[in-house]
Every structure is written in C-alpha cells, then in structure tokens.
C-alpha cells in the first residue's frame, strides 16, 4: 500500500491543510456573494478532512478516516439544505449579497 510517498513529509500535508483552511476563512470573511461564502465553508471542511486523513495515516488509526466520512456526509446534507435556502433567499430578496441580508438586526 504505497499511495502516499514516504519521502513527502507529514508537515507538508498539514501545511497544505492550514493554507486551504485559511483561504476558506478569508474567503468567508471578505466575499459578499452568498454562494462564494458557501464555497469557502466547503473549503474549510475539506481542509479539516485533509488533516484528519493525514493524522489517521500517521498514527495508523482508522478513527480519523471515519471522521472524514462523517464530515463528508454532513457537508453533502448541508449543501442540499444550504443551496435550497440560498435559492429561497434569492427569490425573496432578489440579491445574494450577505451585507444586504441583515434581518437579524432589530
């Protein structure tokens, strides 16, 4: 089983995960389009997935891999519900800018 080359150090995977996560955070914070924000969340989730499988491989523990399946499952459900909400919001307000969707303020 050599789908992971041993000459690639562990830290590289973690670094990639951190970079992807940070991209997700930054995208979430600076983007106004609701769909882009949603994509950023997916990015963060997958960054976390990457660290999970990395550690799972490193410690030869299957728990980490199972976590990843859970995360993917939740992400799929979230995508379905989230996209439905986005469509509903667009129909109601004719915009997808998060700055203009501010009904939470009294």
């Amino acid at each position, binding site marked *: 089983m050599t789908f992971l080359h041993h000459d690639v150090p562990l830290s590289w995977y973690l670094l990639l995960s951190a970079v992807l996560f940070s991209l997700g*955070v930054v995208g*979430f*914070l*600076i983007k*106004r389009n609701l769909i882009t*924000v949603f994509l950023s969340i997916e990015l963060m989730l997958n960054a976390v997935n990457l660290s999970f499988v990395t*550690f*799972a491989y490193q*410690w030869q*523990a299957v*728990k*980490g891999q199972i976590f990843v399946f859970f995360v993917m499952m939740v992400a799929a459900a979230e995508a379905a519900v989230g996209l439905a909400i986005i469509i509903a919001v667009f129909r109601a307000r004719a915009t997808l800018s*998060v*700055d203009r*969707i*501010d*009904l*939470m*303020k*009294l």
Partner: protein
Amino acid sequence: MNAEQMTTVLLHHGFIIFASLWLIPLLPFVGFLVNGVFGARLPKWLVTAVGLLAPLGSFVVVLIDAYAAWSGVTLPVAEELALNHRAIDWISVGSLHIDFTLVLDQLSLVMLLVVTGVGFLIHIYSVGYMHGDPGYARYFSYLNLFLFFMTTLVLAGNVLVMFVGWEGVGLASYLLIGFWFQKKTAADAGKKAFVVNRIGDFGFLIGIFLLLANFGTLTFSEISAKLTASPAAIDAGVLTAICLCLLFGATGKSAQLPLYIWLPDAMEGPTPVSALIHAATMVTAGVYMIARTHVLFDHAPKALALVGIVGAATALFAATIALVQNDIKRVLAYSTISQLGYMFLACGVAAYSAGIFHLVTHAFFKALLFLAAGSIIHAMGGEQDLRKMGGLRKRLPVTFWTMTIAVFTIAGCPLLAAFFSKDAILYAAFLHGASGRILWFIGLMTALLTSFYMFRLWYLAFLGELRSEQHPHHATPLSMLVPLVILALLSIGGGWIGIERISAYLSPSTGALPTSAESNPHLELNLSLLAVAFAVVGWFFADWLYRRRPARATQLASAVPAAYQLLANKYYVDEFYGAMFVKPLLATSKYVLGWVIDVAILGGIAWLLAGVASLAGMILQRWQSGNLRSYAAWLALGAAAVLLFVLLHGTGFTFATALRH
C-alpha cells in the same frame, strides 16, 4: 375478674391511657377538618353532629381517664401515666432532643374536665345561638380547632408542646373574634388580640430559650426534678429572669396588666366564643402555665411576688372599669380580667391549688354569665346596651333565674361556688405575711366592687321596665337553655369540693398549700364573714343606685364628672398605648422602615443594579450589527484566541493524544 381489677390490668398495660390521651386532642381536630373542608357542602344536621360529637368524644375520653385514675389507681406524677416513653420523637438536633409528649396528671386532668366539659356545653349552646348564621360550619370548625389546641396545651409534657397549643389557641381566638369579619370593628378586634398576644408570646419564647440554655431540657418533670435536687445549680438571677419572661407571656394570654387591652375588644366575637375562649378556658392558660411551672416560681420569690402584685392590681383596676360600662358583654369582660387577677393573686402567694380552684369555679359561673348574656342578646335581636334593657325578668324566666344564680355566685354569696374559691384565695393571701395582707385587702375591695357591678348589671337588665322599643321577640331554644341550667347547677355546687380536698388532690402537681402558724378555722370563718359583708355593701350600693332611685346613678356620675369620665374611658389606657407605642411604631414603620430602608436603601440598590444592567446592554448592543460577516469575523477571532491560549498554556491535550487513545 371484677371491673376494678380489669381497669388496673389495662392501666398497667398502658393501653387505655395511651390510646385515649392522643384521642383527646385528635377528635376535635378531626371535627375541625371535616367541618372546615366539607362543611359548606354538608347538610346542617351533619355539621351539627360532627361539631358536637368531637368535643363530646373528648369529654367522654377524659371521663374514662378520670374514672381510671380515680378507681383504685392513684394518679402518680408524670411517669406512669405520662407515658413519656410513648412520646413521639419530635425535634432531634445535635444534643437537643424534644419529644412530643402528652402528660396526664392531677392538674391536667382537672383542667381537661373543665375544658372539654364546659366546652361541650358551649358547643350545644352554639347550635341554638348560631342557627341562622351563614358561617355555621365555619364556626364549628373553628370551635373544634380551638378545643384541639387547648387540649394540646393542657396535656403538654414539655414547654414547647405547650407553646404549640398556646399559639394555636391564639390563632383560634383570632379567627373567632374576627368571625364576623365583614364588620370592621370585629376584624380590628381580632387583629388587636393577635398582636397583643404576640407581644406576650415574645416574652414566653425568651423564657423557653432561657430554660433550654440553663436546664438543657424543656420537660416539666425534668426541670422540676433538676431544680428540687440542686436548687443552687441555677443562678437565682437567671431563674428570676425566666419567671419574669413566663409571667409576661402569661399576662398576654390571661389578659393581665399591662397586656389586658385585647380582651374587652374580643367581645366582638360571637357570645358563646366569649364564654368559652375569653372567659372559661383560653384566658386561664396563663394561670395554668404558672401552676405548671410553679417549681420555678417557688425558687424565684421576687418573680412570684410580682405575680401577686400584677394579679391584685389587675383585679382592682379591671373591677373599677367594670363599674360604669354600659355594654353587657364589656362588663363581663372586665369582670373576667378582674377574676383572672384573683387567680394570679393566688399564684403569687404560692397557693396554686387555690388559683386552680377559682379557675374551675370561674369557668362555671363566668361561662354561665356569658351564656345568659348571650341569651338576652339573642332575644333582644343583637342589643347589648344595658341602658336599653330592663324588665327582662318576666320575659326570659330561665335566663333570669340562671343569671341570678351566677350573679350571686360571683358576688360571693355563701355556699355558692365562688364563695369557697375566692375565700380560699383571700385566706391564703392573708396568711402570706405583711405583703400578703395588702394583697388580701385589695382582693377584699375588689370583692366589694365585683358585687356592685354584677348587681348593677342584674338590676339594669332584669328589673324595672323595658327601656327600648326593641321588644324581646326570639324564643330561646332548648339547646341554649339546657347548658344554662347545667352550668347554673355547677355554679351552685362546684365549690362544695372544698379547698382542702382539691389542694390535697392537686398537691403532687402544684405542691401543697403554704402552711402558716396563724392559720386556724376561726380566722378563716371570720375572714369569710368579712368578705360577705363587703359583698353585701356592694349589693346595697347597687340596690340604692339602680333600684330604689335610678336617677341617682346619673346624678352621681355628673357629680364627679372627671372620675366618671376616667372610668368610662377605661383610664385612657388604649389612648395611652396608642400614643406611646402604636403611633411611634407606625411612624417608624412608615418613615424609617418604609421610606428610608425600603424605598431609599433597598429600592436604591435595586435601581442601581437595573441601571448598570441596562447601561451594559446599551453598550453591548452595538455588537449585534446584523452583518453576517462581522459575526463570522468575531467567531474566527474567538477561535483564534482559544487556539492561542491552548498553544501558550498547553494542557498537553493534542489531537495526537486524542487519536492515540
């Protein structure tokens, strides 16, 4: 096996007494519950049956006890009959153990006979007196509640159980004084009685604490045993303090100076209540308490002397007020206060059994006086003013004759009940040294006044012509007449037991009568004759003023207007207390406690806290911008802060360790 042996066997098994002692208070309590909870929905005959069967049951149980005690088995003090070992463990905290003990001894047996016996008669009377009242069931439930607490008070084996009964009868008294609570005067009188009694109870409570602190027990028999075994073990000053506290409590419940003011107002309650609670039983609780704790008082001579002084002063004081009152029930109320003073006087000269003797006869004749007065009021359609009565002799013959017996009894007519008991008190006072002579003389003067005001009442109510348009129209029902006749018979014969027999019987509980070198039958007879002479003088005055020339009474009153006004206004004591205590207290409550403490300090703190909270809210609400991205930024910032904290103060918990386990 004959009946006597059987009784003895049962007694030694402790069966009869055990079962019955708890039954005595329990039966009225059941009556209270049934009538109190279901009374409004039950038919009237059932309410009556429950209300009457409860006290009757208690009375029968007491009679069984009395028979058991009398036949063959002499009543031992406390231990055998007390069944202390059967008592319920009540309070057990640290080293403090208090049982819920009921004790039957000579003193409580005599008292119980009076309470349940007279109580039952007054229950019967109430059936007629209250027949049309919408609160009929409520009335009987209260009356049964009173009997429950009163029997608990009497049977109490320690001070705390007595205090429970003591407070309970206060509650029942309050409920019954304010029975017609729609009437403001009645509601106010109830409140007054309750508050004044609480003042006395405060003293009683302090006395209980002092007893507990110094004796380590509240059981009467243990306190007596401890004090008798080593009289010097307790500091004399402490003993005096305890007795003064107990005396203060007694003055509240028994309406003595300075706390007597609630009793005249208590006459707002239904008349049978006045007869039962505010004449025959509850108000004698103070005397009973002093007799019960007499060992303490015997070792505190200064406090005991004060008991006598309070009693004598109250007796004279109340009798003078009674001279000019026009409300028939008020006359009787002041008379009650005065007679209670006699009982205190007896206790004050250590003649406790004489005090109890007078308590018993007083229960008979005073209950009779009140019930007869109630019969008059009932017939007159609620009229209580003596000036509007008169000539009732022919219209209410049974009431007239029974009332006549009661009047002659209380006045001290020879061979009637009060003659024996009052003379026993006066004789004991006379033998009690120089200070006793003063008390004796005050008692003698009071006897004169008593005779005067009772015959005044008698003349005004029964003789002459009716002085109002209000004609007596109610026929007096049989249920009211029967108790009158029975009480009249008791008022005649109740004293024939004699002081020697009753004090010999009571001596295990209350100690023997004090002996004196001067005592001899001749002296006793002469003193009795002197007392009768004084009573006759009182009668003569009443006769002269109210029968021969009725106009003289008003002439006399207007001849000395200042004195008359002073008496008619009851020495302005209510006004004095009002200005001295009530007004300052109300002002303190309203301004100091109400405005300064409540509004300014407590309210200020509350407003300050509310201000801080709303100010914080005003500042923090800026955070809630509604902008999704700002929330996300705070979230990320928070997560970063937590991460930073974990990195800097690493707890050693990492994903690595989490995965490893």
